[in-house]
């Protein structure tokens, strides 16, 4: 029985993901459409927030994904540093733009939600602020990948950046909490956990989260394949030129 590292072989990875991709993407679309439709059309308004509560089906899954994708990139970077499997470095690269888009969605939906709820598009609330910082990390990570020509060098450097960045992201989260303490109670305006857990909102939300997760998996599979092929293509072209 081969170990899971088998799938770190690029060819094996492409073969396997080619087989699962149709299923994952179908499931992702199904869950997303069902969850969003359920949430949008068939849930009641909240008595305090009115119809804006429907934004939760986008906002919360996107926020969750934004954080979890970074964690996934961290793990993939560690795998690259320790075991030097090319697929994991490329998977981290493939995931970053997805994570960045998720962060943007969380930020934008949050901002749109904030306008009616808090009367402002943006407040320097700790949670919002740490998301903005996370977005900056995504930007820096992608910019570093884009700026370096040699793929292995880029993989090494971005992995270290991801590692160091994660430590600092945690630190920033703590720092931001400290900084805004007692100055501005923006956070207290958001819903308590107990309130929105009301089942009517909860189940469609779960379905949406599942849809986002599946969508992420499908996208990462597809994009990793692309990165693998692009990398191989660059290698082949470089050798061709050697003649």
């Amino acid at each position, binding site marked *: 029985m081969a170990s899971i590292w088998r799938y770190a072989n690029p060819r094996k990875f492409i073969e396997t993901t080619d087989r699962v991709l149709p299923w994952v993407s179908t499931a992702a679309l199904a869950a997303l459409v069902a969850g969003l439709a359920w949430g949008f059309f068939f849930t009641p308004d909240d008595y305090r927030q009115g119809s804006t509560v429907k934004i939760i089906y986008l906002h919360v899954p996107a926020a969750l994904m934004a954080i979890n994708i970074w964690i996934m990139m961290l793990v993939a970077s560690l795998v690259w540093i320790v075991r030097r499997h090319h697929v994991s470095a490329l998977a981290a690269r493939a995931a970053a733009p997805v994570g960045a888009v998720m962060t943007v969605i969380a930020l934008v939906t949050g901002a749109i939600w904030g306008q009616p709820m808090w009367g402002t598009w*943006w407040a320097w609330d700790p949670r919002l602020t740490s998301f*903005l910082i996370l977005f*900056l990390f995504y930007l*820096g990570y992608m910019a570093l990948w884009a700026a370096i020509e040699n793929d292995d060098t880029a993989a090494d450097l971005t992995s270290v950046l991801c590692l160091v960045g994660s430590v600092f992201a945690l630190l920033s989260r703590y720092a931001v909490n400290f*900084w805004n303490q007692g100055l501005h109670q923006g956070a207290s305006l958001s819903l308590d956990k107990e309130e929105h857990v009301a089942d009517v909102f909860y189940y469609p939300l779960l379905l949406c989260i599942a849809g986002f997760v599946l969508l992420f998996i499908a996208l990462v599979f597809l994009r990793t394949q692309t990165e693998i092929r692009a990398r191989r293509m660059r290698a082949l072209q470089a050798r061709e030129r050697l003649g």
Partner: protein
Amino acid sequence: MIALLGRDMRLAVRAGGGFGLGLAFFLIVVTLVPFGVGPQSALLARIAPGILWLGALLACLLSLDRIFALDWEDGSLDLLATSPLPLEAAVSIKALAHWLTSAVPLIVAAPLFALLLSLPQAGYVPLVASLALGTPALGVIGTFGAALTVGLKRGGLLLSLLVLPLYVPTLIFGAEMARRGTEGLDTTTPMLMLAGISFGVIAVLPFASAAVLRVNLR
């Protein structure tokens, strides 16, 4: 001329994302201000026009040394100076390329950053207008500074030092125009001054820059 513009734009875009990075720097300066100053949005709104102008100015400043330094280091500047292109034209085109790659994205994205600093709605149009009028002056003045310091190893800081005082009038009128606009006051005077500075500077400074560059080359 178009060849030079095309080359400079291409270089800016290729050298690790010319467009995006100036923008990112602006974003980061704007993000850091609340960390330093505190998160109260009333306070932020009051200083927003000034900080936005400062941020644009610094983002512009940081990329100034790219204008000539790279061409100097690899010898292209010597070769350009011996080419049929008049140095005055080369300098103007380089200023234009710098403005297109570093200032235009800022102008477009300024409203978004204004949002982060809770600038009142009324301030958006004057802010963008003042940036659009003022940044060409920043670019041309900066090109002059870059030409002055081009021979010096890593003249970056010296460049900032020379250029920043020259930026003062532009900054004053620009920020003033944005602030007055925000508070609903009349913006004609600062706007005229800003436009005057920009046009004057565009008409005259390239000659000074070219002269200075010639001295630095010999």
